[in-house]
């Protein structure tokens, strides 16, 4: 725990939706190039915390954040933060696969275009190929890149969403219950993919599925009623929790 390199560090983080105090005094460090899971009962604030890291909460009206989040030492909770650069560096995958109503090709091209990353037909195609290879979709889809992405299976769509993020060469990938719309086999394969991706990326995954957290993550944070109750390596949190609440949650006494 002590020797890990820290990628994201949240300090005294508080978040309010209007009068509702959704996150309370969060102190949290995300280790680099590892998978960190956030678990807890629904409504505990784990998705809200995740959405702080790429400032997606800005889209919510009446949302106010105090405290500090530093990614590579750079402050994120600041009006001057360049949200475009931040969201390129910190990509996000959502609960339901939200591919655009466009072709597979154009789904991937969108990000490349808005960040003006590559130009020229050949280089774009090479980049798209690389992106699809990262998520294991290239062989399946290479002959139908012009097909509408919404015709794919949910698992393929979710992989495409991951590719859409990966193709922008982010450093952090946030996943908000990425498997909740998928069947068990697809879930397993996505987890496998995440284990491969952690070599290159810092991954934070929110899940309501404790087994998933235990299977896939290196570190686990347990949240309850807007507080981060416990954080540690996954094996420690699951086998030897320090807090009574964590123990009760993990042993299935509430949730």
């Amino acid at each position, binding site marked *: 725990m002590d020797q890990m390199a820290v990628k994201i560090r949240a300090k005294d983080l508080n978040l309010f939706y209007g009068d509702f105090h959704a996150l309370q005094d969060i102190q949290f460090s995300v280790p680099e190039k590892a998978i960190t899971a956030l678990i807890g009962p629904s409504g505990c604030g784990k998705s809200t915390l995740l959405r702080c890291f790429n400032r997606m909460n800005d889209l919510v009206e009446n949302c106010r954040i105090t405290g500090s989040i530093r990614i590579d030492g750079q402050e994120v909770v600041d009006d001057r933060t360049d949200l475009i650069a931040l969201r390129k560096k910190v990509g996000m995958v959502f609960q339901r696969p939200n591919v*655009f*109503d466009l072709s597979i090709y154009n789904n991937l091209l*969108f990000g490349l275009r808005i960040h003006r990353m590559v130009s020229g037909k050949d280089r774009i195609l090479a980049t798209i190929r690389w992106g699809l290879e990262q998520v294991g979709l290239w062989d399946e889809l290479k002959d139908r890149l012009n097909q*509408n992405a919404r015709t794919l299976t949910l698992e393929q769509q979710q992989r495409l969403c991951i590719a859409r993020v990966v193709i922008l060469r982010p450093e952090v990938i946030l996943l908000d219950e990425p498997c909740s719309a998928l069947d068990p086999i697809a879930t397993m394969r996505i987890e496998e993919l995440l284990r491969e991706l952690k070599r290159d990326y810092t991954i934070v995954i929110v899940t309501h599925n404790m087994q998933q957290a235990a299977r896939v993550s290196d570190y686990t944070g347990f949240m309850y009623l807007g507080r981060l109750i416990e954080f540690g390596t996954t094996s420690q949190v699951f086998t030897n929790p320090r807090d009574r609440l964590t123990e009760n949650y993990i042993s299935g006494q509430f949730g």
Partner: protein
Amino acid sequence: MRRAITERIIETCIRLSGLVVILFVVLVFLFLLKDAVLLFGHYPLGQFLLGTKWLPISEPPSFGIIPLLIGSLYVTAGAIVLCVPVGVISAMFIAEVAPGPLKGILKSLVEILASIPSVVLGFIGLVWLGPFLKDLLGLRTGQCGLTGSLLLAFMALPTIISISEDALASVPKAFKEAAYGLGATRWQTLWRICLPAASSGIIAAVMLGIGRVIGETMVVMMVTGNSPVIPRSITQALRTLTATIASEMGEAVSGSEHYYALFAVGLVLFISTFLINLVADAFLRRARQ
């Protein structure tokens, strides 16, 4: 048993109302066709379609439809060029940019706009817009195609705005979230994601707007100068197909060549709107795929 009969009755009613629509279209077409063909007993079809002079009461009369077709074309094209971009951009503003309270106000204003009777618009065009354009552009007359185009554009705007706005508002929130999550700006999200996702609705809105423009009679009759000659520009007096029928029907003797010629004009109008709808449908189908 009783339930089965009720089901039958309801089903038959629904089927009948569907058939009535088809029946009406066919009947209107036949009705126009019946009188229109009588013209071609006396007057050759080629001269009607390709003739460049519309002189219904001179001796011998001449029923060339080209001046009217071009008049309609000018006014319609002018109106479309004006109202489509303005309408779609207004819809984008209302759906995505305007803050809550302003959005509500704008939406009800657009609805009010839709309820202005066309004769009132024609009146405004006659006493204000026409003379204004005449002074502004130094025209010979303010009663010209441009005045008509502007007013027709104004009439089509509410249709285009409200239907496009609905289409944009029904784009799933998840698309926007995904785009913002990838680092897109509001404009990029709107332009590259929301607009394509709403495209079929927007095309439908534009087509309905165009339908309104082509069929409109009162405004164009009041403000376009009513002169059935081939206009060389949109700033000249002209006359549309619709205005021709409306202004000459009263004086044409029933059963005369002139009378049938007006039916033939109606038939041309009917066929052109039918074709436009067909094209629109093809577009919509492609957009849906």
